């Protein structure tokens, strides 16, 4: 029931008016088109101690994601599958509006929406990550640290998680005598099936814009995050914020998410193949 800090960023009334007016004329205050994403930069392998890592910059939003692989017990009901655990933390260094402490509901939503995209698209083939069925499985942790907040953490974190996983090398564990699990010291590629890409659109007035900045998020009426897989199918969706959408707006946003998602997917593939 807590009210959160990031959503309480205050934008001056005049600035707000200026933004709404510009957007109604299909312009944005930073000069972008309504459906234009900010520049996406991805750096890989920046954390040597992680099994995979990435630093993603989406405009001024910056996220570092790291993959850590261990062995552990499987989740209840999923005894023959590896475990995938995703987290996100908005660090106090990310914005003057963020304070240290347990995660607020916005941060919990962020982690759960990013998780939903990766999980529902079945990006990681968890069936291939059981060691002793029912007892020992691979446990993959992907943790996101938000370094700088300038809006659209959903997409920035999602791209960070996806590119960290794509560039990761998992330690190879072996089962000896059906009992003991040992780390062979070898590495393998993770079993990946698809590249989920989320696209977040927000509604300001009657216009829908993509990849909002912090300032735009502070003025938004409603938000929608749509994740597609490599086949262009929808895998996850989350509407957020206190406004509402018409059915037509949702159908249109879904189509944009499919088209823009493919563009971003191509970009992620390109950026993750360089230097790897």
């Amino acid at each position, binding site marked *: *029931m807590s*009210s959160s800090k990031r959503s309480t960023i205050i934008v001056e009334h005049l600035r707000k008016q200026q933004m709404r007016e510009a957007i109604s004329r299909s312009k944005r205050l930073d000069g972008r088109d309504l459906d234009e994403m900010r520049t996406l930069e991805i750096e890989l392998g920046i954390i040597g101690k992680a099994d995979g890592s990435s630093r993603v910059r989406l405009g001024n939003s910056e996220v570092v994601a790291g993959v850590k692989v261990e062995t552990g017990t499987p989740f*209840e009901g999923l005894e023959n599958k590896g475990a995938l655990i995703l987290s996100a933390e908005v660090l106090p260094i990310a914005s003057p509006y963020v304070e240290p402490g347990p995660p607020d*509901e*916005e941060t*919990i*939503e962020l*982690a*759960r929406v990013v998780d*939903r995209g990766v999980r*529902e*698209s*079945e990006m990681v083939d968890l069936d291939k990550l059981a060691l002793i069925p029912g007892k020992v499985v691979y446990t993959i942790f992907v943790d996101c640290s938000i370094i700088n907040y300038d809006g659209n953490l959903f997409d920035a974190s999602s791209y960070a998680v996806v590119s960290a996983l794509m560039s990761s090398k998992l330690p190879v564990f072996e089962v000896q005598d059906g009992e003991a699990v040992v780390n062979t010291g070898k590495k393998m590629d993770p079993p990946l099936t698809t590249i989920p890409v989320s696209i977040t659109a927000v509604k300001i007035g009657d216009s829908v814009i993509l990849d909002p900045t912090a300032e735009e998020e502070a003025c938004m009426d409603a938000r*929608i995050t749509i994740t597609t*897989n490599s*086949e*262009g*199918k*929808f*895998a*996850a*969706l*989350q*509407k*957020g*914020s*206190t*406004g*509402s*959408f*018409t*059915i037509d707006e*949702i*159908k249109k946003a*879904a*189509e944009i998410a*499919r088209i823009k998602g493919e563009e971003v997917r191509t970009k992620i593939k390109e950026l993750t193949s360089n230097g790897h």
Partner: protein
Amino acid sequence: MVQTRSLIDEHGLRTDGRTMDELRNVKIQVGIVKNADGSAYIEFGKNRIVAAVYGPREVHPKHMAQPDRCVLRCRYHMSPFSTDTRKNPAPSRREVEISKVMREALEPALMLEDYPRAAIDVFVEVLQADGGSRCAGITAASVALADAGINMRDIVPACAAGKVDGKIVLDINDVEDKEGSADMPLAYMPHLDRVTLLQLDGILNQEEFNECLDKALQGCKMIYEIQRRALIQKYFGDEQELKEES
């Protein structure tokens, strides 16, 4: 998400005997929590949920108060005995997220600007969960808000549609949620024609996506009728209901 058994039989019927466009049994009772300013109890399939509204009332802690509008607070909570294996009573991350989306689903329907410096608290307690509890919770909560006499632009019915055995079906139950391939909960304001909650878990192509959206919307319209009748029943009794029907 592993398909272990057939969820739709050769007659096109589902595990609980419903057709693909059929809702589970929905029953709403208004005003069952005596101390609350407004309340509703909903039976939605095997879901058993109580929603209670307190407010508009003074805000505690005071710094949360807004000078120009009312603060809406929502708590979605599952009782420990509501699920197959006992649920830890401490709020889980899932419950925190649902509380948030539930608040955002209800807020567009409320005239919060009419109650500056005050708070409205909505408590949704799931006594028994049967899949679709967030939708049933929103449905009950919006009836409870109306019962509390809060100024509203519209009422908010909610319903899910999803994909089971390759088919798009209305109102996913517990088994279909766990074993089916997609679940799309939706909340909708029927008079304003606006969607206030939308989520999706699972894979759908563009065509299925649109079909799912339209089907969930139809479900919301059916649930709206049940909400309306429950409110009429409470405030005007059976007689009025009959007059209204004819």
